[in-house]
């Protein structure tokens, strides 16, 4: 028998009996950040490849979502801070060792670029609403001319943004569920996959839909592989990692993780996408929405379950 109890003192709000410092805003932000990273990555890639005329949804219509997602995500992050008025302290220093510092700086660069990107398509996106001021029209022309440079910058930045949402969690060695090197790539791939799903959802041409169905299918297969890798790594790990894995496999998060993330969020949509590519008629909205929900649930499961895992007590 081993029984441990606090005889005095420890009854800290949000920490005892179980850690609840990070709530839904963090999960929502990690999802929106990954989604924006995916959308901006594909917009940049298609532009660099010179295919922006063939895939208008990717570079134009879906790209509108990324500044909105980033803004909402940043608002969620700001809402989660407890010393809000001091948020500017993030930008008085660069801390190489802190993933959150990296993320704050990348967001500071990528968020304005995502707005400028949409601005560069303004007259094509909103042909009926003319810009009132002449200088805005000139500004738009400059942006349109330099769009390719924005695309070159967006590709590496969106990859950093996507991978940082995972590394943010995996850098905490005190939380055994998070502390595995797979989480960065897993969140990046999941973010790219949700981005592709949103493009499928909004795409008007069959060609664009099929290309992104194929991309999404490949990403889902990679994501499943990474999840298997993650679970195998934890199964072969130390005791705390075994306990962490048991939360997902046979523990309180099993239904959420296997039911909503793996089956409904990955395997079912992948099967539907495959049958659609082969030629059967399936409304593409179903797999796309399932992928998006699966991505959101993955963030919630990882954030909530990770905070339960610990070394002591």
């Amino acid at each position, binding site marked *: *028998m*081993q*029984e*441990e*109890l*606090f*005889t*005095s*003192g*420890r*009854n*800290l*709000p*949000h*920490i*005892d009996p179980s*850690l609840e*410092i*990070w709530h839904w805003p963090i999960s929502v932000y990690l999802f929106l950040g990954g989604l924006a990273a995916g959308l901006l990555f594909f917009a940049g890639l298609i532009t660099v490849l010179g295919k922006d005329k063939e895939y208008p949804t990717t570079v134009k219509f879906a790209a509108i979502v990324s500044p909105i997602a980033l803004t909402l995500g940043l608002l969620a992050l700001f809402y*989660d*801070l*407890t*010393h*809000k008025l*001091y*948020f500017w*302290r*993030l930008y*008085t*220093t660069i*801390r190489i*060792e*802190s*993933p*959150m*510092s990296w993320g*704050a700086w990348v967001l500071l660069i990528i968020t304005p670029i995502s707005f400028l990107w949409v601005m560069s398509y303004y007259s094509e996106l909103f042909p009926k609403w003319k810009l009132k001021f002449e200088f805005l029209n000139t500004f738009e022309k400059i942006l349109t001319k330099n769009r390719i440079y924005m695309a070159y910058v967006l590709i590496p930045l969106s990859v950093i943004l996507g991978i940082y949402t995972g590394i943010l969690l995996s*850098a*905490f*060695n*005190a*939380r055994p569920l998070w502390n595995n090197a797979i989480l960065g790539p897993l969140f990046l791939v999941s973010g790219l996959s949700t981005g592709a799903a949103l493009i499928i959802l909004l795409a008007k041409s069959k060609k664009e839909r099929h290309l992104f169905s194929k991309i999404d299918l490949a990403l889902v297969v990679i994501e499943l592989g990474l999840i298997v890798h993650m679970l195998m790594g934890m199964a072969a790990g*130390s005791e*705390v990692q075994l306990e962490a894995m048991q939360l997902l496999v046979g523990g309180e998060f099993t239904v959420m993780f296997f039911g909503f993330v793996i089956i409904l969020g990955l395997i079912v949509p992948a099967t539907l996408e495959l049958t659609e590519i082969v030629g059967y008629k399936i409304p593409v909205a179903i797999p796309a929405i399932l992928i998006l929900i699966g991505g959101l649930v993955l963030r919630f499961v990882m954030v909530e379950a990770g*905070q339960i895992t*610990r*070394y*002591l*007590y």
Partner: protein
Amino acid sequence: MRYAMVIDTLKCVGCSDCVVACQTENDVPIGYCRDWITETVSGAYPTIELELKSERCNHCDNAPCVRCCPTGASHQLDNGIVLVTGDECIGCGACIESCPYDARFQHPDGYVDKCTFCHHRLEKGQLPACVSVCPTKCMYFGDLDNPNSEVSRLLKNRKHKTLAPEAGTKPKVYYLI
């Protein structure tokens, strides 16, 4: 200079005087604490063992909270003490997540707070409040770099352990067992 604390679990009676002394000295808000007592019972009757420990921030040599802080509010002094500068802290909670000892908490004013090894008392040549009030004198405080200090000699001669050394943080609160 590397400050460390040594606590004799064989002498501790779990009276919680250290907890109250800390709350009084550091004006810790009601309902919060920077140190606490744990009581661990292990084994089965009749070979049962009871261990009482006063726990707090371990002022780790390899402090994960300092590493993950995005603003540098969490920092380590040359003497090994880990501190939080309140008006550099944004309250993101990353350090709380990163601490294997759950030693940090969000102060009602928003910033993150924790044990300071009574840094302000050390500057005046006094001992930390918890150490100075301990009625069984089971707590020792001193410099690990000095081989003749009380803490160094105790660690040389007595069997001891640290909490969750497998977390790789190199904690500096030692427990004599």
